[in-house]
């Protein structure tokens, strides 16, 4: 409340008009024509210092820059967006910081779209800001189905994945491949409970049975009793819905208990960066659904090579997803001839997309982007031929089957 006092009065007079001018802007700043502020500004809001730093983090900016370069190369002199800028902020996975930074990006840095935003609570906060400011938000890394459910709005897109898709992908496909009896271990909080429900539905719909649902405390570091309990009914598959540090603890103890040979392990939510940080050995043989894999085919690999040349690492799905989201946003600006939100939304809605990230992609009416996803099995150590060569794609799940239908909770 108190600021440095002598300067206050002078500074107030100087900044007053500035602040007022900037605060007035809420709606689209340009009416019919061309670009607001004569440029397109892409906002990247993600975790640049915490647990999701490797998943998207600072390298997502490089992926977005690649999209800008490709867009400029493609359209050259005909490009509608001649000047394209990226602004970034580190939300540290805190929803309040994400909320303030999103407002600042839209209001003061003139961002036309915000990209990425891991952590569900932060993404939901940004979605409500997008709605209030009437600017676009394309989420890549947060997995909550609420973004296209009860919290859906006209300005928010979910580009890559959600928890229901993970359940459907892994649950259904593993059952089809013979893993009919399941025990599900889940952390007892909203994310875990949602995943448990989605997986149970997917498994039973596919003709399998869930023998046991075992809640665990969260966070937790000793899973021994839960593993013993899960194994007591001799299921073919044990599903684990924990994420992050808890997942790593669980998998370690699962292996120590010698469970690898007794039951197949299916993981609800896992990223390639988790495999990389814990070592491929720990996860060998586990199944999970991946929205994108860098070594799927020659096309992905070529893009991954370009990415590696700039970052010295292989891309995660989040990097490719950010590239794709930025590229398609710019394509939509090109098609609309302006960066005015309503026109860009019109150009994006219903669009069918095939690019390095989306295969058989389509922007659905609820702004859920559906596309082919992949059931992956983690390779064992002797199958790994090069760095980041961790996944064996067992099956491609077609776009139409991968995602849940439009939620009745979504009213735009």
């Amino acid at each position, binding site marked *: *409340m*108190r*600021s440095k*006092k002598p300067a*206050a*009065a002078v*500074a*107030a007079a100087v*900044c*007053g008009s500035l*602040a*007022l001018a900037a*605060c*007035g802007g*809420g709606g689209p700043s340009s009416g019919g024509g061309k670009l607001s502020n004569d440029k397109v500004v892409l906002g990247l809001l993600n975790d*640049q*210092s915490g647990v999701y*730093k490797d998943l998207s983090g*600072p390298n997502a900016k490089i992926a977005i820059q690649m999209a800008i370069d490709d867009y400029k190369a493609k359209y050259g002199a005909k490009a509608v967006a001649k000047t394209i800028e990226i*602004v*970034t*902020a*580190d*939300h*540290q996975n*805190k*929803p*309040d*910081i994400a*909320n*303030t*930074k999103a*407002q*600042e990006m839209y209001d*003061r840095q003139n961002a036309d779209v915000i990209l990425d935003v891991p952590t*569900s*609570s932060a993404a*939901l*906060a940004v979605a*409500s800001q997008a709605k*209030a400011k009437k600017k676009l938000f394309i989420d890549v890394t947060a997995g*909550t189905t*609420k973004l296209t459910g009860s*919290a859906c709005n006209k300005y928010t897109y979910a580009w890559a994945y959600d928890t229901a898709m993970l359940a459907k992908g892994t649950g259904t496909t593993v059952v089809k491949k013979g893993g009919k009896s399941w025990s599900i271990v889940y952390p*007892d*909080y*909203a*994310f875990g*409970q949602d995943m448990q429900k989605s997986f149970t539905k997917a498994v039973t719909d596919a003709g399998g049975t869930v023998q046991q649902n075992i809640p665990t405390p*969260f966070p937790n570091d000793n899973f021994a009793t839960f593993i013993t309990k899960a194994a007591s009914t001799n299921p073919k598959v044990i599903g684990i819905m924990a994420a992050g540090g808890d997942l790593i603890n669980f998998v370690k103890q699962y292996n120590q208990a010698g469970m690898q040979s007794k039951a197949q392990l299916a993981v609800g939510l896992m990223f390639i960066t988790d495999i990389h940080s814990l070592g491929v050995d720990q996860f060998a043989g586990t199944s999970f659904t991946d929205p994108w894999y860098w070594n799927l085919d020659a096309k992905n690999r070529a893009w991954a090579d370009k990415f590696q040349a700039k970052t010295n690492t292989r891309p995660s799905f989040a990097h490719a997803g950010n590239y794709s989201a930025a590229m398609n946003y710019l394509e939509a600006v090109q098609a609309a001839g302006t960066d005015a939100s309503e026109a860009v939304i019109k150009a994006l809605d219903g669009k069918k997309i095939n690019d390095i990230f989306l295969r058989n992609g389509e922007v659905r009416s609820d702004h859920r982007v559906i596309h082919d996803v992949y059931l992956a099995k983690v390779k064992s150590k002797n199958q790994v031929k090069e760095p980041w060569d961790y996944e064996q794609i067992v099956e491609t799940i077609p776009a139409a089957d991968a995602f849940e239908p439009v939620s009745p909770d979504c009213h735009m």
Partner: protein
Amino acid sequence: MTHPLKDTSDTSEASDTPEASGSEADIGTALLRPGRRNALRWIMLAVGLVAALVLPELVYPPVAMDIAAWALFAISVDLLLGYTGLLSFGHAAFWGSSAYVTGLIAIHWGLPFPVAILGGMLFAMAIAVPIGYLSVRRTGIYFAMVTLAFAQMIYFIANQFSGLTGGENGLQSIPKSFFGVESVETDSFYFYYAAIGLILLGVWAAWRIIHSPFGRVLVAIRDNPARARALGYDVDRYKIIVFVLSAGLAGLAGGVFAISHGFASLEELNWTTSGKVVLITVLGGIGTLWGGPVGAAIVVMLEDRLASSGFEGTGIILGSIFVVIVLLFRHGIWGTATDLLQRTMAGRRDQGD
């Protein structure tokens, strides 16, 4: 003036130094004559008011609102830590539970936000009664641990009742309804001026508490609980009352924060929030009242700037600053500043008289 933190650690020994009792609540005005001391207090209050009113002109309004909310939150902690000698490490419980209750009232009943915040504040005070009753029997580190334990309990309760609280997704889309005034409901600049009144009311309440006879008793309890008890004061009752009042102020701040952001998340109840507010209070200077706002301005602005700077280690910077302040300026930023002021004024009076 001895350091309040030190006092909490050896309250049991009840050091019987003559200057310990009856020491001034306001460090900066200790040596002034009563008339001038009073005038200075009012000037401080006026300066604080002006600063609060020009703040959104100087910084981005949502950030200004954060500073104001954290300032009041820090003051509520200072009331306990600086003026009563109780280090609460669980104040997130009151800030966070008020944020949730405020949000629930605003969402489900659509009441104007000041009413919703009032509801949140009353809820915070209500849960502070049993928590305070059980924790004030301990002092020092034990008090800190007991309050932390209660705060963690509330954190897990909020996490479990995800149907009501949204679990780790948080309670989203809290409306800013304000009697249909659209500029306040949609523009953060005007919202600031609509909400700052509540914060100022809270600061004024803290100021009144500190400068009342009740506040004097608190300082006496802080400096020498045995003597306060010997003088006939019911020490535990005083502590419970100030604990509940402090929780109310924290709840008021938390409610404003929730409305300003439009959501309440588990982060608000997390122990890191309790830690952050203690950091802000110590950074600004404990037992100074104005230290909280100064600390809040520094920490919130720094977090905001660092988030956009591209620097990948916000925590390292904040931690280093904290270490430097604690090592070099033991009275915090505001405490050190007023110490200096007091010394120069005392020097000038010696020459003048």
